[in-house]
């Protein structure tokens, strides 16, 4: 038996593949981008425990955000506030288990946890002038840029799923806002069906 090289697979792989050969829609006001796999680590700990916060700082070079809806950025990772004792750290593909192990080691003796959940959510990115409108068609939160700007993230129902929505500035600055959507893996195809529906008035287009 050949020992195949294991490859990760996204439920959206076929959709993005098909989109590559589709002609671009010049009138599209919103695009969804395929984003490569990312490392994701669930970090648990008490926000009033300085040893815990220091341990995260030591390992990841990041100050965990302590306020709801805030995202902290470091060179190789970011931390999204999910709850008063719950963060999601996002890192590069394949690095999730490593980061989780490093954090676990640093958490020795503390009441804290780091769990690799890199496969639990799929990320896709929404860009374009109507991106916020598409979000507003499925999210009860006020996601207009004035209220929900770059550096903020919420976990909230979006269309037919519960999503983590992270707003970030595109590079170079001034290129507008982008929204990273983290969708539970098992529901990502159903979410996609909703996204196609919600994006239709804005001619949602797939950008591979």
């Amino acid at each position, binding site marked *: 038996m050949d020992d195949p090289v294991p490859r990760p697979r996204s439920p959206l792989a076929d959709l993005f593949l098909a989109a590559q050969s589709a002609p671009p829609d010049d009138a599209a006001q919103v695009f969804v981008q395929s984003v490569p796999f990312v490392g994701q680590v669930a970090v648990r700990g008490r926000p009033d425990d300085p040893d815990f916060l220091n341990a995260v700082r030591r390992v990841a070079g990041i100050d965990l955000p302590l306020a709801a809806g805030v995202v902290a950025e470091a060179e190789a990772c970011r931390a999204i506030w999910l*709850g*008063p004792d*719950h963060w999601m750290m996002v890192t590069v593909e394949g690095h999730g288990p490593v980061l989780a192990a490093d954090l676990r080691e640093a958490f020795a003796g503390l009441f804290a946890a780091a769990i690799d959940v890199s496969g639990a959510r799929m990320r896709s990115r929404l860009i374009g002038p109507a991106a916020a409108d598409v979000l507003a068609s499925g999210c009860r939160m006020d996601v207009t840029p004035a209220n929900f700007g770059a550096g903020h993230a919420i*976990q*909230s129902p979006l269309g037919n799923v519960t999503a983590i929505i992270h707003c970030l500035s595109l590079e170079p600055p001034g290129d507008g806002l982008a929204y990273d959507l983290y969708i539970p893996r098992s529901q990502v195809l159903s979410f996609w069906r909703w996204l196609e529906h919600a994006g239709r008035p804005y001619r949602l287009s797939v950008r591979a």
Partner: protein
Amino acid sequence: MLLISCPWCGPRDETEFVYGEAAVERPADPASTTDAEWTDYLYFRDNPKGEHKELWFHRSGCHRWFVLERNTVTHAIAGAYPPKARPVTEDEA
């Protein structure tokens, strides 16, 4: 649709939450309760017309339980605070 202020996340739509039940205290030592006391805890709830303290769970958000003081007639919300926490008074809010 109610607008509920999660003590951690701020105002969110009712659809993000699930109603748990009335905010009643679980007996600290169930074994020492009489059958009547225990079944009272299990099954009997007030059904007030007016102010009601209840537990809600922020299922689609931060996964926290909290106490909501809601008027069952008007839906006016007098407060939302963590379980076993002292209600925040208006001056402090």
